[in-house]
């Protein structure tokens, strides 16, 4: 093997990326979880530590990995900080700077022994169920590049779970796809992929999760739920979101339901991970009130199902489902209130 060949082959050291998955999460949490596991952190302890509500009107994009994330002072968004507000997890979007050398940044990142999270269109990836059929914006982990044999090493925890090689040409089609409007997937198509990638960094290994540390996280988040801000945050923010959603349904606005599915996925995934973490800690620490609070938060995640699926099936006639949307928003609001109460009570004892 010549030096030139070696220079065009990049692979992370150590084991292949972990396929980290839960049934209510999206590729966003799955890929971040994979990065965290590689960094030696417990993905559930980091991604499940925070629990908040945030809706940014006009911001929702039709991508599996959409998550509300306000732009910082520089205009950039830090999805890592949004997903893990209590940890030093950070990320930034980037795109190849050189159209004539699309792999330059990927090579550099892999050479640092770090993986890359890449946005893709499922339509062009042979291992995805949507291959050759449905366009949808998705995230995968890149952990190797072999330009000699023309292969990219891809890891994807979302069922049917794949870890292996994809021909470079197929990956380039997916990575650079226009992800055009697809009637078979109204929620995750019509969003240009644009060869976007995420650079994810964990500032430092997370400290051990103790009752005192978790109690601090929970009190901060409960305060945020109870505080009225200019943005749609907390319980008041949910009320504003739900009121607008039902109004738009009554007015026949299908866009409201098209946005509900990807937006609700992020909120649902976060609640499911937070609830699971609290249940786990409650069991390990012999704290049934904390475990019960975790279950109450999981009930929030489960109530998101009714709202999201009702909206998905009602896309063709929003007026017809407006009463059911109101019903499920009311149920979900009740679950939020119960869970915030339970978490607050548990946190006060930690």
């Amino acid at each position, binding site marked *: 093997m010549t030096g030139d060949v070696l220079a065009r082959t990049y692979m992370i050291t150590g084991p292949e990326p972990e396929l980290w998955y839960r049934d209510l999460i999206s590729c966003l949490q799955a890929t971040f979880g994979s990065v965290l596991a590689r960094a030696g952190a417990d993905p559930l302890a980091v991604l499940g530590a925070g629990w908040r509500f945030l809706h940014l009107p006009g911001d929702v994009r039709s991508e599996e990995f959409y998550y509300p994330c306000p732009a910082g002072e520089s205009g950039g968004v830090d999805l890592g900080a949004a997903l893990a507000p209590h940890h030093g997890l950070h990320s930034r979007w980037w795109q190849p700077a050189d159209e004539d050398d699309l792999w330059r940044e990927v090579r550099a990142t892999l050479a640092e022994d770090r993986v890359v999270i890449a946005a893709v269109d499922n339509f062009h990836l042979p291992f995805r*169920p949507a291959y050759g059929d449905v366009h949808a914006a998705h995230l995968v982990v890149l952990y190797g590049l072999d330009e000699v044999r023309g292969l990219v090493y891809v890891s994807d925890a979302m069922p049917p779970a794949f870890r292996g090689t994809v021909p470079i040409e197929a990956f380039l089609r997916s990575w650079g796809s226009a992800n055009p409007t697809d009637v078979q997937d109204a929620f995750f198509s019509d969003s240009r992929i644009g060869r976007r990638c995420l650079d994810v960094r964990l500032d430092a290994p997370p400290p051990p999760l103790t009752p005192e540390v978790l109690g601090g996280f929970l009190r901060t988040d409960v305060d945020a739920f109870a505080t009225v801000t200019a943005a749609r945050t907390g319980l008041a923010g949910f009320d504003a979101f739900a009121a607008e959603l039902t109004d738009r349904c009554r007015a026949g606005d299908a866009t409201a339901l098209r946005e509900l599915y990807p937006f609700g996925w992020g909120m649902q995934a976060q609640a499911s991970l937070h609830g699971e973490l609290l249940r786990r800690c409650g069991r390990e620490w012999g704290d049934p009130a904390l475990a019960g609070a975790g279950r109450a938060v999981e009930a929030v995640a489960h109530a998101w*199902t*009714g709202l999201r699926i*009702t909206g998905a099936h009602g896309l063709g006639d929003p007026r017809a489902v407006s009463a059911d949307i109101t019903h499920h928003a009311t149920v979900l609001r009740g679950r939020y209130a119960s869970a915030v109460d339970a978490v607050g009570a548990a946190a006060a004892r930690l």
Partner: protein
Amino acid sequence: MTDMLVTSTIARLCDPVDISGHRNNTAISAATQTGAGAFNVWGNSFAAEYLPAGESLVHVAGVPFRFPPVCDGPDNVRCAGQFVTVPAGRYDWLHVLAAAERRCEDTVELNFGDGSVDAEPLRVSDFWAAPAWFGEIKAFESPVMHYPHHVQRGVPAVMWAQRVPVTRRAGLAGLRLPRNVAVHVFAVTLQRAEAGHDR
């Protein structure tokens, strides 16, 4: 031998409920016609070849269920608050074969002959490559998922056996299913209260 006796005892107390008049969704398809099923909004469906024969009597953990028709019209009830009349009687458990479009918990309202109504939780895990989050029994599984235009390996579709307690010691008259289109019910069986245990 003990397991067989328990199974036999349970089966003796169970009565499958006729829900044929409420079926409104087709969730099972043949490999040659995958587009005929649409359990969820993406048109995914269970693979018929891995499921019991249509309208056969099946047993899951000793509980008998009347399996729905297969590839012969609607096979499940997509829940929207339908009211199912049941044979009047005292029951301990409501058993269902069900699956959900994502993990879901809602309520089923138990209507009693004396006019009382109890809402009890109905918890159903996702049908799409998911674990039994609520401790259900995996009743049936197709190891492949049907998409409208192809058969997908590596993504199983799961049908769960779940149960709901009937805590009130009164005669049951009917069930109001959840007002939740994410929940799909394929079969319902009621388990009678044992004599002497219903006072």
